[in-house]
């Protein structure tokens, strides 16, 4: 598969939007209808982190790196890993400036608690695939850390997980290339959607404007 052009990279964080609602993802990432542009937000975030001296932390056989920018040319994505733990491992890869061999494990922080569906997993898997590509290594697991339960969940990554993420990303690239915003499929999830005001899903279920005008004029 040919690599994506860097200009066409999608934001990794969009996977969770896409899983939540395709229209929401398109409104944010295709149309940039966000109160505050996501890219700007990520930009300031990285900036804030980069200004801090303790980005790297050594704990025993672990090297903990925060806010690590990652990308993948084959998947056509770019983003930031909250935390990547590099663990000393004879099967690992050499890191510049460090002695020994290491293997990376992405850790994704979530505000809430574990969800029933696996919407949080895809993003982590995509991060893992980015790390594999950038560091030329094979990985098999990452972690989800839930702030509410202060609990870390181990996420093994299988081949079929990867295929699934690839398929989702392909679909996202397809919409993105066509600049297409899917029509709303309104549901209970709309209640918690931050773009409800921009999307107005109820509106699309309304009668046609032509009949609205007709009925008003005939009054």
């Amino acid at each position, binding site marked *: 598969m040919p690599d994506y052009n860097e200009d066409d990279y999608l934001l990794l964080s969009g996977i969770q939007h896409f899983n939540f609602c395709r229209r929401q993802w398109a409104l944010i990432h295709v*149309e940039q*209808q966000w109160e505050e542009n996501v890219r700007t937000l990520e930009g300031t975030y990285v900036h804030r982190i980069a200004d801090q001296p303790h980005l790297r932390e050594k704990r025993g056989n672990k090297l903990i790196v925060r806010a690590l920018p990652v990308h993948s040319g084959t998947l056509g994505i770019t983003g930031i890993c909250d935390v990547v733990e590099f663990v000393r491992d004879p099967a690992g890869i050499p890191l510049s400036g460090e002695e020994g061999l290491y293997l990376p494990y992405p850790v994704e922080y979530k505000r809430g608690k574990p969800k029933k569906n696996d919407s949080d997993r895809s993003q982590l898997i995509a991060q893992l695939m980015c790390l594999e590509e950038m560091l030329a290594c094979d990985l098999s697991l990452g972690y989800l850390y839930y702030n509410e339960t202060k609990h870390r969940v181990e996420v093994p990554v299988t081949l079929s997980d990867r295929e699934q993420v690839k398929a989702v990303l392909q679909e996202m690239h397809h919409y993105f290339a066509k600049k297409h915003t899917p029509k709303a499929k309104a549901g209970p999830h709309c209640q918690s959607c931050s773009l409800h005001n*921009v999307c*107005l899903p109820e509106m699309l279920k309304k009668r046609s*404007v032509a009949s609205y*005008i007709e009925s008003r*004029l005939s*009054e």
Partner: protein
Amino acid sequence: MKKLLNTLFVTTPDTYLSLDGENIVIRQEENILGRYPLHNLEAVCTFGYAGVSPALMGSCAERSIGLTFMTRTGRFLARVTGESRGNVVLRKEQYRISDDERRSALVARNFILGKIYNAKWILERATRDYALRLDIPRIKKVSAALSESMNLVHSVEDLDILRGVEGSAAVQYNSVFDELILQQKDDFFFRGRNKRPPLDNVNALLSFAYTLLSNDVRSALESVGLDAYVGFLHRDRPGRASLALDMMEELRGVYADRFVLSLINKKLINPKGFYRKENGAVLMDDDTRKQVIKGWQERKQEKIIHPYLNEKISWGLVPYSQALLLARYIRGDLDEYPPFLWK
């Protein structure tokens, strides 16, 4: 629906606005006249050359708080905008429609339809509310003529014809507008529209209300990602917010005219607050202008049911909801642009 935030109007001339932490501070020489948190604000509108610190401009631009400079009489001077955001795809489609006369006409006719419909119902309401005071047959005649214009507009696909119908409907409406002024008739009367400059008290009020409205409409269009300068009915002219003017057609009567009428009829405005210049131009004094702005802010808080969305919103969100609906139409989510049909 979006939350209606406040607009800060600065009407005291020779003030200086600056940023202090998360607040706007208004200063006149050494005195601090006021301090307002930025997070409550949607827009800042200054009249009379108030200076603004670069830091405050930057903060407003970053938070998409509209910052507009007007002359004391309410003529638009400049606006500070940040990096252009939003939907290129949407704007390109807007330009395509604007370049195509027939497609433009299909949108424009709904603006005009809204304008005439609202004009008709302003008159109809008045005949109901003030049956004993008004020349009912005369107004009913105009109302019937407006209905006829509406039927015409409904099938027009040509911009020039549309402008023609719109023009004659406006003449009809203006011919009875004076009837709607029920108080202080010696000082407030309407003999026709004049604007450069306004030559009587009513025209001075109308001009000022249109300025306030156009500012709201322009911000609304920009906040949904449309280009306020590229219109359908009004064609491009450098420096003219054509799309804002388009959208104002349907809102002028129902929003601004009715507002002006209520100021006069409820005697919220005093004829002593107006003065005439040597060239005949009528201007308002600072207190009167403050009074108008106060009334405008209060009007924006009043609730109505949006006729198409069927949702309770405040008057202040009407420009925003129309802008949003226009964007939805341009993107292909709606079969037509739904004008604001008030009754």
